[in-house]
């Protein structure tokens, strides 16, 4: 019904301009929460593609909470479940939640993701993690749902 538009102030052109402006404003308003260049889901996909294997959240959980023969597990600093703020096992500094649903900043910057996996895997496993391990951990972390938060955190393993 084109006649409707001709009479009114809101021509299709103005409407779309308003909509684009509103969308742009929204994008800028949301930008700080995702300041980086990537998402947790695409990081999981990156490592899954690299390994050529399907991911397993359960394997990720076991990996995350195991000590791998050393003094620490990933959970020593990030907690189990990793959905709340924790304290660094040696410095005591606060570490914000790791699960992306509980902390939208997580895994949104590729360089940062690579830096921390490199360091933390060296600390826990005395080697770098494989693509399978990283994809599995991400699969587990992505399972946590902010609308259905897990039970109260258990003691650090």
């Amino acid at each position, binding site marked *: 019904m084109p006649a409707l538009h001709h009479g009114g102030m809101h021509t299709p052109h103005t409407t779309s301009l308003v909509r684009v402006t509103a969308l742009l404003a929204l994008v800028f308003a949301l930008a700080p929460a995702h300041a980086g260049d990537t998402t947790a889901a695409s990081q999981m996909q990156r490592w899954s593609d690299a390994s050529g294997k399907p991911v397993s959240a359960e394997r990720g959980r076991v990996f995350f909470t195991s000590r791998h023969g050393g003094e620490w597990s990933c959970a020593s600093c990030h907690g189990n479940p990793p959905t709340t703020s924790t304290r660094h096992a040696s410095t005591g500094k606060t570490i914000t939640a790791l699960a992306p649903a509980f902390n939208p900043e997580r895994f949104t910057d590729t360089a940062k993701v690579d830096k921390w996996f490199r*360091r933390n895997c060296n600390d826990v496993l005395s080697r770098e993690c494989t693509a399978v391990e990283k994809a599995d951990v991400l699969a587990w972390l992505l399972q946590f749902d902010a609308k259905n938060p897990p039970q109260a955190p258990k003691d650090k393993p």
Partner: protein
Amino acid sequence: MNPIATTMARTPFVRNVRRSAALLALACALPAAWADSREMPASAMLPAYKQECAACHMAYPPGMLPASSWSRMMKGLDQHYGTDASLDPAMVRQISTWLEAHAGTYKRVREAPPQDRITQSAWFERKHREVEPAVWKRAAVGSRANCIACHTRADQGDFDDDRVRIPK
């Protein structure tokens, strides 16, 4: 008094010069206040230093260690007191340059402490000689490196004695 000089002193030009000189003196005095001190406001710290180093622990003022300690530390970040704190080479260079430029040079800091640990410096021991051994073991303190447990504004680079509150 010379009337010409009195008039001169009131001209905007002279006032401006005076104001500029005062500002310049202040600008020089402020950095000097912490240039060779164990204190440094967080606002004066290199953003990369705060971002990278204070991700795991508080940003220790660079004046707390001599340049030789910082230099050794920045060369061994992959084994940084038991953890891998490695950074890309450009970042290491940037932070090292800043740390070494702002390192402590006065008498009590000049000498590198054992293991390049601030907490093993002679001045640290002396400053904390009245702290009972049990205090260091309290859960809220945990470690000698946890300055902020007692120095309530340590994360701002402020170690003033007046701001010390020892937790129970």
